[in-house]
């Protein structure tokens, strides 16, 4: 740990994701390009809210996911989603062999194997001798991570982070720091979360679920749509990047984790935590606001988040607003997976100049002078992309992805 080098570059070498708009990165990017949202009626989750609350489900049964994941279908959907995306990320990284490389898996989620636990509890509550133990075996958050790590043969460093909706941004940040400390050479980092009755009902009691399709950063926004999925990046040290047969995707050039310290669930009206996270990430990367070519917003579509985030952006980017959008208008809010999924989108924005649309935007927020992008476009001049992830408990994290010159 004596070897920490702040200036050591950390590269993004591979990407993997699954969400309501596709089972892999290519399918998800196509959906973004074609303006196809993944939101709709509940069709897989067994809930009384079917037909009442729209969600963004991955369009696969657990059995179908288990075939893609090459894991048993009885395990948590969170682990199945995580496995599919993490394997895609590692495969796409074109690292010839992990042997001899110190490899880690840093994964995030918010409710672990809750999808199975909530089934277990139905039988267990009336009689504690009942309920299938295998349904609760993977309850804790770490269990899904361990399943994926064991499948991928990753042993050097395996950990799980849970900081609500910023979880997987923090996983990516932790992974980058492990590389800069010289502790690891390769890190698969991101997160996974399956839709559960627990989270659907939880967010429903908070009255922040839109009964229609969400409208992030719109003056008439009415809340968020929950989604599910998984997203991972493969981070590598410079030494590994040089050994790779293909080019790296981009560089993770900055990050910052702060706390809003305002309220357990609400963001401060001035978005203090968001401001500190974004400005801290810029400082960490040595960039200024005018260097940012695109912002992938946290943009949940709730009154509170979009105002806080927007106010913080106004303060930081005043007079040099880059294009920005919330891809949650496609994927829904995937909670512990969102930072990972949006890191994949942000990495490809840097690499290919993609600017993603913010669907269903109609009216500019009265408090803000800027509007999000409405159409998919390509801008090769994008060099740096900022990705925001903010969550309950005032947890605010921002990541910056940068083009690799040369």
């Amino acid at each position, binding site marked *: 740990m004596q070897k920490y080098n702040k200036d050591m570059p950390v590269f993004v070498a591979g990407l993997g994701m699954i969400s309501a708009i596709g089972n892999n990165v290519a399918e998800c990017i196509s959906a973004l390009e074609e303006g196809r949202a993944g939101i709709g009626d509940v069709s897989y989750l067994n809930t009384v809210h079917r037909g009442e609350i729209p969600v963004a489900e991955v369009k696969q049964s657990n059995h179908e996911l288990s075939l893609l994941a090459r894991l048993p279908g009885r395990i948590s959907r969170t682990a199945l989603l995580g496995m599919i995306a993490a394997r895609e990320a590692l495969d796409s990284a074109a690292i010839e062999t992990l042997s001899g490389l110190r490899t880690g898996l840093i994964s995030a989620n918010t409710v672990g194997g809750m999808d199975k636990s909530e089934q277990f509890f139905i039988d*267990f*509550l009336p009689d*504690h001798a009942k309920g299938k133990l295998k349904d609760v075996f993977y309850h804790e958050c770490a269990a899904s991570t361990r399943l994926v790590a064991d499948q991928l043969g990753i042993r050097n460093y395996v950990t799980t982070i*849970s900081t609500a909706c910023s979880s997987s941004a923090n996983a990516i940040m932790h992974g980058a720091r492990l590389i800069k400390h010289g502790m690891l050479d390769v890190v698969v980092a991101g997160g996974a979360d399956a839709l559960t009755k*627990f989270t659907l009902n*939880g967010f429903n009691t908070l009255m922040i679920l839109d009964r229609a399709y969400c409208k992030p950063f719109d003056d008439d926004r009415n809340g968020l749509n929950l989604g599910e999925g998984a997203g991972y990046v493969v981070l590598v040290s410079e030494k590994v990047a040089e050994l790779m047969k293909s080019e790296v995707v981009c560089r993770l050039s900055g990050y910052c984790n702060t706390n809003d310290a305002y309220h357990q669930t609400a963001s401060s009206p001035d978005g203090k935590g968001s401001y500190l996270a974004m400005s801290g990430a810029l400082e960490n990367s040595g960039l200024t606001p005018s260097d940012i070519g695109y912002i992938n917003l946290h943009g949940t579509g709730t009154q509170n988040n979009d105002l806080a985030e927007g106010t913080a952006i106004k303060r930081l980017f005043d007079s040099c607003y880059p294009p920005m959008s919330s891809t949650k208008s496609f994927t829904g809010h995937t909670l512990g997976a969102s930072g990972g999924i949006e890191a994949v989108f942000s990495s490809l924005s840097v690499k290919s100049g993609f600017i993603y649309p913010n669907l269903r935007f109609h009216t500019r927020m009265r408090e803000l002078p800027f509007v999000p992008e409405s159409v998919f476009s390509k801008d090769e001049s994008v060099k740096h992309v900022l990705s925001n992830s903010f969550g309950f408990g*005032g*947890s605010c994290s921002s990541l910056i992805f940068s083009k690799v010159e040369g």
Partner: protein
Amino acid sequence: MKIYIRAASNISPQQTFKESAFPFQAVEYTGNILKAIEPDYKDIIDAKAVRRMSRIVKMGVAAALECLKDAGEECPGAIITGTAYGCLADTDNFLIGMIEQSEGMLSPTAFIQSTHNTAGAQIALILQCNGYNNTFVNGGFSFENALLDAIMLLHEEEVTNVLAGSIDELIGLSHAVLSRFRLYKRLPISNLDLLSSASKGTVAGEGAAFFLLSSRSSTDDLARLEGVAIFYKPENTAEMANNIITFLADHELNITDIDLVITGKNGDIKNDAHYDRLKETIFTKNELINYKHLCGDYPTSVSFAVWLAAYIIKTGKIPTGAGYEVSEENKLGRILICNNYQNLHHSLVLISA
């Protein structure tokens, strides 16, 4: 860089809370449940805030605030929490309500508090700390990951101190589930006889402990945190013995440099045999003591051992025997904590003077 433990605070099934808590007279329990002895929270946390908090959050926040008070620190540079299970009571409350009321008429309070980072968030909120805040939920490594992250942050030199700790609670339903996995003793036993029980299973415990770690020394430091290492699923005791020797060598130490070893014996015959073999093979000349008969076994119990080690170094008093009668004062240089949880998560923590 040296890392100093400036203050440590521990709410556990023993009388460990507040700074004069070591040495303590062991509290005896019969049965396989060791619940934390909770302080009067009104003396520690604002009365209005405390009413809204669930039990585990109160324990975590109280341990954190007391630690900072001892350290004379108002707002640490970072707050890092480790918890295997998070806020179990709130999770179960919401889950039960959801099932019993068929997903209707639920209150958001339990859901809001069930989030794993609730304790870390509440600490930040009370202190108005806008700094780095993270929560590791990594089973039997959750606390060690928090310590490792704290060490990394201090080496990055953007902050000079970090509040790091762990919380895990024991509730009726989790005990009922874990009992079906045969984790615990089936017959009632005194915790003071736990480590000589020669049978399967352990006793369940819980606790909240926080530490103020600093890259700057002060006259009040308890001890130094010299190193932490984690080992996932080692093949056998021999591999762990090698890991221990390598870990010490990385710190330019030999086994004989260790004045005291705190083991993770928990009363389970198979688990404890691992430590007996280590004593026979590498710790032949070292003094060994145990701690899980006092706080029970749970995924983040290492925080109890770190608290214990810090106070042993500070006071020079070594607890002996199950009842924790203390010896005359000794001068100790180094204590090695050698723990495992469920034989999956093995860890080493080196505490020194």
